[in-house]
């Protein structure tokens, strides 16, 4: 008797590329959310029906909190919230991985930062000379995943399967070995400290997405 091989609905290559592109866009969106204070353009996009609907489907409802106000006021309020949450002064939610990881050695520019920097560089990237921040900022890590998934999509479109597989492996290591271990703590802290719904909603979305990604990538056959 033939051994039964489990029948799994394997996505077709075109689908796989599309999925990688969609993941990349979401990473890109989240990176822009954490990279700097929200702009009017960003708020404008979020307010659009399609975007709002898609956000709602993942449990993010910002319609009320973003309506009935001028963009100018909103941008100002969110800029204050951003600074209070991620920059300080006073108790805040530090956006650097190494502070959450590394046990007793946890610190700014700690051992985990070195790991992140080398990992990202080993994957083929350089930090731009203009970049003034620290290598393990949440926005950098989300941007890294945005770039990797984008490269994954391109590899699939060009039918360089082995290359795509290698990229997926790299993503999986970064997600499971690193991001999934600190992003939930980071997001929980935002939720507890946020005064406006914007960042607590975004934190919820981020943690859900990262955990979903980690789960998905951990189950990818290597």
């Amino acid at each position, binding site marked *: 008797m033939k051994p039964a*091989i489990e029948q799994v609905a394997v996505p077709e290559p075109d689908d796989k590329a599309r*999925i990688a*592109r*969609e*993941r*990349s*866009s*979401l990473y*890109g*969106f989240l*990176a*822009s959310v954490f*990279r*700097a204070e929200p*702009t009017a*353009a*960003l708020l*404008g*996009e979020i307010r*659009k029906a*399609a*975007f709002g*609907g*898609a*956000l709602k*489907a*993942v*449990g993010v409802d910002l319609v009320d909190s973003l309506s009935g106000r001028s963009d100018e006021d909103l941008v100002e309020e969110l800029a204050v919230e951003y600074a209070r949450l991620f920059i300080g002064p006073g108790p805040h939610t530090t956006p650097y991985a190494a502070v959450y990881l590394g046990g007793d050695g946890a610190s700014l520019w700690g051992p985990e930062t070195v790991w992140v920097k080398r990992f*990202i*560089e*080993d*994957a*083929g*990237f*350089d*930090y*731009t000379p*203009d*970049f003034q*921040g620290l290598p393990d*900022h949440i*926005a*950098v890590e989300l*941007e*890294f995943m945005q*770039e990797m998934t984008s490269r994954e999509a391109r590899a699939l479109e060009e039918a360089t*399967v*082995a*290359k795509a*597989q*290698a990229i997926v492996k*790299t993503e999986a290591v970064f997600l499971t070995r690193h991001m999934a271990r600190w992003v939930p703590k980071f997001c929980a802290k935002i939720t507890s400290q946020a005064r406006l719904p914007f960042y607590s909603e975004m934190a919820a979305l981020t943690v*859900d*997405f990262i*955990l*979903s990604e980690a789960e*998905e990538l951990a189950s990818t*056959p290597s």
Partner: protein
Amino acid sequence: MTSRRNFLKLGAVAATATAAITGTGALTWAKENRIKGGRDYSPTTGKARKAIPSACWQCVSRCPIIGFIEEGRLVKVEGQPNSIRTDGKVCAKAHAGPNQVYDPDRILYPMRRVGKRGEGKWKRVSWDDALTEVAGRLKKLRDDGQPEKFMFHYGRMKASSSKLVGMFLANYGTGTIGNHTSICEGAKWTGQELTWGKHYDNWDFDHTKYVLNLGSNLLEAHTNHTSEAQRLVKALADRRIKMVTFDVRLSNTAAKSTEWVPVKPGTDIAVLLAMSNVVMNEGLYQGEGEAFLSFCRATPNVNASTADKVAALKAHLASYTPEWAEKISGVAADKIRTIAREFATTKPAVLVTYRGLVAHYYGPEGERAAQMLAAITGNIDNPGGRCKAVGAKWKFPSGPKDKPTAKKLKIVDGFKGQAKLPTHHINHQIFNVIKDGSLGRPDVYMWYCYAPVYSNGDCKANAAVMKDETLIPYSVCINPFYDESAALADIILPDATYLERWDWEDMVSPNQVPEHYIRQPLVKPLGEARNFGDVVCDLAERMGFPLGIKNMEDFVEKSCEMTPGVKEAGGFEYMKTHGVWHDPKAKPSYYGYAKPVKAADLAKDGVILDEATSTYWNWKKAKVKTVEDAKAKGYAHTKDAYKTYIGQKIGDKVYKGFKPDKVNKTGYFELYSTVMEDNGFAPMPTYKAIPEHVAMKPDDMILTTFKVNVQTHSRTQNCKWLTEIYHDNPAWINPASAEARNIKEGDRIRVASGIGHIETTARVTPAVAPGVIAIAMHCGHWEYGRYASGKKSPFVKEDIVHDKQMWWKSHGEHPNWIIPNDPDPISGQQRWMDTVVNVSKSVSA
């Protein structure tokens, strides 16, 4: 938790908004695949090591590598992550490269013998003295009008080395040039030349769904090893395709296959013919196979219909039934039927063959039978099938315009009548031919990257001729190491190792997209070692025919600046920095045969249609005097007409077809070969029993040889990391065969053939077919330095570390002492796997 689908929807919406929300990121793309290597750090200082891209040369696969340098010392070799061939992977042999550079037994200075030849007494000479002496000898021959008395014999010489050294030899004027292909897989090449023209096949594992392997141990050793092996492993592990391996021995390739089918040595061809019988009789050729038949020749009449071809194939194969094959091969008829059906109905499927199939009497017939099975199932030059090889095409300086007409001694194709189609020569006969003398003898015998005494059969006879000054008056060895042949030289010119020299490279791509790459020095040559490519430029200058090339670096630089693609990418500077280049827009090459020939090419001066074969060729380029003569003699019977081939007329169209090489075949895929017919062989692949096997006595056994994954045949045993892993080669014997001879595991045994005997140790294992004794071919060096043989070279550099590190005492036994140099009658292939031996318990034990 939110469903994944909703995240993706949000992503899709975000994509439309990206432009508005993207800020300035922190990352820029720097380098492809850096994760896979290309950077390395000193474990002691933590400093980054200097990384230099180059190319391996431990074996002919020539994988792109990166060497890491610390304080001027080569400390590590890794794969080149940007290579599309190897995808950054290399084998153990490549990793052991530094052992070649720092071999404590290495030859660092030109040496001239002072005692008798082979006595082992040497005197150091300067390069100037050495080259004055060699050039003096050579120039005299040339001036006397006897350049052919300079024989140049190489083992491994490829790409730019082949071109530059070839330029030297051509300008010197000798055509007496030997190679080593007949002791490798010459029969396979001849078989392929007879069917589809070119000699090399690529197995498209990236796209195949089924692998049928006859006699290839490609997971351990292959001419394109790492590139192919990793793709096969991915196909097996990731795509879970089926692989069936026929082999007399459970090689690691057989072990990783879905199924291992043991077969009696030399009878794989019977299995192949029976499979083709099944395919034809059960109509399994219909579909792809039948369509491909339009490009096949299967009958004397080149314009036969497909129905006629089918009928001819059925008629030819009628007697080759699975039941017939079972009697010959020992493989059950039902098993042959099942595998034939699987192979024919799983599309695409790839047919893999190597020395297990062809290093036999009538070896090319095995390859032709394999080509037939692949053709009638439509698995030729298609994605996932057996494809025509694609390698980088370099442009390079052609050297001086006026060359002398080369003269040559007809000594590299064996004795008259030994083989009819030695398209890759019969160099294992060279010492017999020289000893005989009737075909002439060289005055100067120079060898390069070759181990003639050790690598050919009948080592004793090889050594005897090389040692005899009346047979070979003057001998020049080019080698970084003191091996069994160097020990018999008159003068040794210390070659640079491959990690100290320049080359451009062109090995075949497993993915049908060519890759250009270079080899550059990772460190300066040790001592006074010099790359032979540099030395020939010097020699030519000394003899008064300068090549216009300064040295190999100059040749590589010029080639980079004139090769399309490489040039535009940045030429030599680009290649020195990046090591590899391929055209990112190139599409994989398949179905080249089905391309039409342009009308303009058919209208060119001298191009005519040969009525007998429907082949277009150029009679003027073939140097025939008149068009009438050309038509009277015809394409098939005009010397070297294949070199002028244009296309094949099939129906009313003219196709590029399967361009011939080495023989005047048509542009069809020839299942029916008039070249074979004209040479007195059957035109279609035919089984011939191996005479020695027919004449075997009941207690005789058949000797077979094999390779392991960490050694090449002869050139890596000086690498301590490799030889630490593999330094002993007990003889594999089946428990049934062992019991019949009262042999137990670990016993000393005597293996005797018609030309001598060796003593070795028994490894009793069911992993080899009964009646077969299998001995790996890497061991038993009696020179080549301490790691290979336990014997230090005369040029030893005392080194306590090395002596301490070498814990092993055994160096194994070399089977070639008892394997005669015996050519297959078609190609001249050395019949490695045909030797009949008597095996008994050692008396001295």
